[in-house]
């Protein structure tokens, strides 16, 4: 496995206690796999990606580990992690449009960044040009200031910067959320191209919008309230969503051609539970339409087929 997450626990230390944002999360990512991580706001997906590159207070690494290419990432040790940052693990952040220093020309900033990490800009210059072309940006972008570019252009520039050193793991955190639908498609496709051209190995695509994942992800992981509720190949989860939450998510997506009067859009009632001192049991039980008494016990993530895991008592084969 290229990436192996084992029982990862990342909590936030706040005045009122610990917020269990990522709670005992385990999964694997193969090489060259694009894993889509979906879930509503606050489910822990952004915390996950940030914890891999920028774990600082109030975030706390409470337990578990992450292995990349066989090495365990020293998540809690800020200094030791630096070796991995950008070179092995890279991120396209949620705030990509503001991620560039406004008073520095882009080319100069990249050069200074690389030099500060002991690399020379000269070696990657050609590669840089090639990739800019890949995202439909002209070389002249290097001589411009960030404010001279549109939001979309800045986003693509950050994409190029983030992947410049061919990281083994790329975390794409809500990179399409702020874009219009047609640009979303273009950007998602660019990401796939990066993977296809071997510019990055594994990708975690974090979003709250599953429809995008259908198009580009190999596997999809659904998170809810800090836990994984379902993880499966895109095909499998689309054909047969098993977890009640997933089912509701998918049904709340409008189908093309279906009019409102034909079938009502079903939003999911209620809100996710507080992660401060979460109640025991399945986190989804308050909103679950098929809840029963066993749900007061936390359901384990079980494999129900080769490419499909679910955490739901309803789906798990009863012993005996």
């Amino acid at each position, binding site marked *: 496995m290229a990436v192996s997450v084992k029982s990862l626990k990342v909590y936030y230390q706040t005045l009122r206690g610990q917020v269990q944002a990522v709670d005992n999360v385990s999964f694997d990512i193969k090489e060259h796999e694009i894993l889509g991580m979906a879930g509503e706001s606050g489910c822990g997906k952004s915390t996950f990606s940030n914890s891999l*590159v*920028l774990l600082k207070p109030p975030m706390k690494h409470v337990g578990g580990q992450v292995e990349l290419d066989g090495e365990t990432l020293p998540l809690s040790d800020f200094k030791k992690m*630096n070796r*991995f*940052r*950008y*070179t092995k693990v*890279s*991120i396209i*952040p949620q*705030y990509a449009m*503001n*991620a*560039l*220093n*406004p*008073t*520095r*020309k882009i080319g100069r900033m990249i050069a*200074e*960044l690389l030099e*500060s*990490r002991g690399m020379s800009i000269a070696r990657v210059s050609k590669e840089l040009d090639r990739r800019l072309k890949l995202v439909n940006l002209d070389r002249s972008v290097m001589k411009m*200031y960030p*404010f*001279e570019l*549109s939001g979309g252009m800045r986003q693509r520039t*950050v994409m190029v*910067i*983030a992947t410049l050193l061919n990281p083994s793991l790329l975390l794409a955190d809500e990179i399409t959320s702020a874009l219009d639908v047609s640009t979303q498609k273009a950007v998602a496709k660019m990401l796939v191209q990066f993977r296809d051209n071997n510019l990055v190995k594994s990708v975690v695509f974090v979003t709250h919008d599953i429809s995008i994942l259908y198009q580009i992800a190999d596997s999809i992981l659904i998170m809810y309230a800090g836990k994984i509720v379902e993880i499966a190949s895109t095909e499998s989860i689309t054909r047969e969503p098993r977890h009640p939450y997933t089912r509701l998510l998918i049904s709340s997506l409008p189908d093309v051609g279906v009019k409102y009067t034909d079938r009502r859009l079903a939003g999911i009632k209620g809100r996710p539970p507080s992660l401060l001192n979460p109640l025991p049991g399945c986190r989804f039980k308050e909103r679950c339409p098929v809840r029963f008494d066993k749900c007061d016990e936390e359901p384990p993530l079980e494999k129900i087929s080769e490419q499909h895991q679910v955490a739901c008592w309803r789906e798990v084969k009863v012993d005996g």
Partner: protein
Amino acid sequence: MAVTINWMIPRLMPGDPIRTLIGRAALRAEAADKVAEYFARIYGLDQPAWRQYLSFWTSLFRGDLGTSIYLSPKPVTQVIRDSIPFDLGLLIPAIVCSWIVGNKFGAFAARRKRLDGIALPIWYVFTATPYMWLAILLAYVFGVVLKIFPIAGAYSFAISPSFSVGFILNYLRHWFLPFLSLFIVQLGGWAIGMRNMIIYELEADYSRYMEALGAPRKLIRKYAFRNAMLPQITGLALQLGVIVAGAVGTQVVFSYPGIGYLLLQAVMNNDYFLIQGCFLFIVIGVLIANFVIDVIYVIVDPRVRHGMGGETA
């Protein structure tokens, strides 16, 4: 327009300069009237107001600011010219040094929480201190108790200005305490401002991203510093305008012959021309300083440069 206000102001003051001058000469009543007339004619004060205004502008262009009534018959330009070196010599180093040092310290404290906790209150106390009180304090401690520095004048009465080493040393000794009092108070302000700006920049998205990409602290700090400087530069311009008021206090305590001190004397003696001249100088000085800073700002901040040329989509 500022110049017009400048001209108007002393005129609006009640009190007759001629009378004051004559009062000092202690003449008999009728003689006094005659002399008053004479002087009024010389100084053009018997002309109707609009005439006076016009002649003001014409003489201004000739570089003639009139003759000081109080210190007559010295021409105002000369009086001001004599004090300029002392004034600028005191103010400019004080402002610039406090700006540089304040920025450095502020940036430093922004990074270390512990240092910040101690330093910040100290800086607040510095800015809260009235200039003249600090001057008094320093004068007392170093001048009277410890007797290291003199407490009056720009240089000892016995010596006259020259470029000799002796004079320069003497000048510096007199210069130090007033300089220090101005320096310390402003230092606090700059340090606080810079510290806040740096904290703000360090928390900005771009700083976070640099960190996520593994950039060393040094680089991130360098960027934060450059970006935090921009508002500090604007502040510098503003400060140049405000400082005259504070400097007056300090100059009075040390009897330091700067423009502020001069202005005060002029006011006390209803010397129209001197007041005008001083104000003119101050106003022009401030305008120039602001202009220079504006230019520097355009050079330094690419966003401003671009905003002026129009943005691309």
